């Protein structure tokens, strides 16, 4: 029910964006976000974008967890 799908913002017109979900395109409302730009990846739930995804942060956290778990048994 709380499923949310990431997609790429192709075009913004007012409060509505065209978002690409791996080839499928849908209109998504942007009422719940400020500062969304074309090219951003957004997380979409029930027709509304609820967050701009932070890819850099995601990569950083993964590599840091990899480091830590490789370390002293998770110390």
């Amino acid at each position: 029910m709380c499923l949310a799908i990431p997609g790429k913002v192709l075009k913004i017109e007012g409060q509505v964006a065209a978002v690409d979900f791996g080839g499928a395109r849908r209109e998504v409302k942007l009422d719940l976000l400020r500062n969304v730009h074309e090219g951003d990846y957004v997380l979409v739930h029930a027709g509304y974008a609820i967050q701009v995804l932070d890819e850099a942060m995601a990569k950083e956290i993964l590599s840091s967890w990899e480091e830590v778990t490789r370390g002293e048994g998770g110390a």
Partner: protein
Amino acid sequence: MVSALLEKYRDKKLATKIVSAIQELIPNRHVKFVHVCGSHEQTITRFGLRSLLPDNLEVFSGPGCPVCCTPAAEIDEAIELARQGILITTFGDMFRVPSTKNTLAGTKTDGADVRIVYSVADAVEIACRNPKQEVVHVAIGFETTAPSIAAEVLRGPPENFSLLICHRLIPPAMEFLLASGETNIDGFICPGHVSTVIGSKPYEPLSEDYKVPQVIAGFEPVDVLLGIWILLKQLRDGRHEVEIEYTRSVRPEGNVVAQEKMREVFEVVDKRWRGFPVVPKSAFELRQEFENYDARKKFGVQVKDSVEFAKGCRCGEVLRGVIYPSECPLFGKACTQEHPIGPCAVTSEGACNVAMRHGKF
């Protein structure tokens, strides 16, 4: 780009490493973690994560499926409105959930106009296209879904549109589980998309008051395993904090715009949940200034003698994280995906349904 990133979160080698780290951290006693999200249950069961965990570490599903937690009385209200000739829209998950005597699907079969929508915006569009027809949207869902309803109310839908608000709030239900003492929780895996909206702060009082470790985790197998590892590390260190594993989506402050819209449109009230008594401050109602959109006030709908569970059904205990679905005597026998008796067997995020589809019981 997103899919390449997600591949990493399904990486078997990384998952194996985290499982080893979990083995090293597991204390010499029984440990019970509870998650409160149907999508987490799907990941855990579909990828067989429980089978990778130490025997003395259990992960239970809590009240993470909003349609399962919606009291029968509220579904009965929707059914009654449909029988009165009102066009009902709802999310697909709610369509087949059994209520006292019927489901919305069954009511449609009986001739009522019940339609499944993907978004509340689709429901408003139906109302715009049918100006002489009253349309009521059954607004279910946690804090992930409520902002879209608030946004649509603020957009000013037409007069023939109203809402049967059934929204529930997650942190108060988690507090209920901790306070009741029935569930014995060593750590919470907090829901990723609810937390995308509300942030990490609303969980902090739970860690302070009940000394319980918490982690907000994403929905890939590596996310969930990392979440479990983070909780074990807190247990080992004697810490009880709210940590964020799902950093690609969750910020500590959450989605401030969504929170503002929810505050503007809804007030927080005490309400019952299916399988729970009244949970303080755990639900939304429309504020007085938006009461024109409140279907309960508009139509004065009243139902009585609602029945939450059929005889023998243990969905209440499943929803409170007390038993696994397979411990219910009806599971997979009288109650199946095809002929569900309890709410948790119906939707793709109900714990019993997930167990029947993917589990090994």
